[in-house]
């Protein structure tokens, strides 16, 4: 900008120092506009992030006393399905019998449950492939070839520990953070009690 003005103007030519100061003021003014533009972006972008009421609903409390061994329930955690399954001793045994190094996403059942509550498998009901809800939590639903969960969208099979065994999904069903507040009460979404 400065270069287009006043090059032929005797006053401006008189001292080279003046030209540099002029440049400085104009650059500063344009930079200030740039800073303002960048600052305005902060609210414009952050308004799309979860609002306070959405963030406030980030824990779910559950009473699991009514779930019999072999049964599972579907709950809702952060607007997504959550599976809570009471494993039978047979299912636990099945899961523990699998050699870890044969798994796509190696994890033991013990790592996926809480100490002292080894029969409670709490996972997200969201297939790690493309986010469909797998079958197997409802009564009489197809539990897949490994007796856990089966995702009908693209045929992913999960075992009784919710681990991926067959099909396109890359990861085991996600275990959210949760705590047992008592033997029959869970708080999902909380790191510690």
């Amino acid at each position, binding site marked *: *900008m400065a270069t287009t003005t*006043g090059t032929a103007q005797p006053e401006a030519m008189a001292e080279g120092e003046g030209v540099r100061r002029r440049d400085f003021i104009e650059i500063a003014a344009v930079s200030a506009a740039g800073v*303002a533009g960048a600052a305005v972006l902060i609210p414009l972008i952050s308004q799309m992030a979860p609002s306070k009421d959405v963030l406030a609903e980030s824990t779910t409390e559950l009473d699991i006393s009514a779930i019999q061994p072999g049964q599972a329930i579907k709950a809702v955690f952060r607007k997504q399905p959550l599976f809570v399954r009471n494993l039978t001793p047979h299912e636990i045994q099945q899961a523990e019998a699998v050699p870890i190094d044969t798994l796509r996403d190696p994890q033991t059942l013990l790592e996926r449950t809480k100490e002292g509550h080894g029969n409670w498998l709490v996972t997200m009901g969201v297939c790690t492939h493309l986010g469909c809800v797998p079958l197997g939590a409802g009564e009489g639903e197809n539990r897949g070839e490994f007796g856990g969960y089966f995702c009908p969208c693209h045929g992913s099979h999960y075992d009784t520990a919710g681990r991926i065994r067959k099909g396109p999904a890359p990861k085991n069903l996600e275990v959210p953070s949760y705590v047992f507040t008592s033997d029959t009460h869970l708080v999902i979404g909380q790191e510690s009690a």
Partner: protein
Amino acid sequence: MIRLIGFFVGVAFTVAVLWAFATGAYTAATEPAAPTAEHEFHRTPRPLHLASDGPFGRWDLQQLQRGYQVYKEVCSACHSLKYVAFRDLAQLGYTEAEVKATAASWTVPGIDPVTGETNTRPGTPTDYFPSPFPNDIAARAANNNAIPPDLSLMTKARHDGAAYVHSLLTGYQDQPAELLKKFPDAKTGPGLHYNPYFANLNLAMAPPLSDDQVTYADGTKATVDQMATDVAAFLTWTAEPSLIKRKQTGWAVMIFLVFATILAWFAKKQVWAPITPKRPKKD
């Protein structure tokens, strides 16, 4: 042609509106509008000064907590606060545990997870303040046919909101003898209460506050005026929890803008310097 048509249209509108003026003036002269009691006895709120006022305003958290206590122990019997959630109380300086505890002290409508029937349960931080009445009809039936308005936005929904709340709560009085003399028909009806700060002077709400009605945890003496001030402060917060953040953001924005505008002024001067004619000043 346009001007000719325009001329006649203009004259027509002028004649019409002046005719209306003439008839209006005639009516005003022959039958002057009767004065009304509201017109002569309604008063604008007395000034109220809160810590949150002005460009440098701050929340007085102690006062907001006292105001919350007044709302909880007095107002909430009839008035809802439906846009405020218990989690918001954390902004009044309560800890997470205190918020949980105070939320649990409220009873909110719920659904039995087994039978699906409606029931009630203790509140959690994500719940909103419950309404004291299940619906408008119940509210009307319980309150002499007047629905107690929701208070969340009260201080924004009236002129001079906080001052209005304070003046109204402290403004109950006997109907002035002068008023009755001048407007014998304007006697406050049964079930109504005279209050010069209310728009039509007669309010269905009975005077809600009396001295020492609540016991403040911080030892402040609970006079009617104190409680009215505190609840007005609390309702200022409920109406706009972002009030103070707004003013603080405003200061940052203003300081930047003034700086940037001064810079823009000098930049403009620089750009224009070569083509601005220099005239010798005459003084």
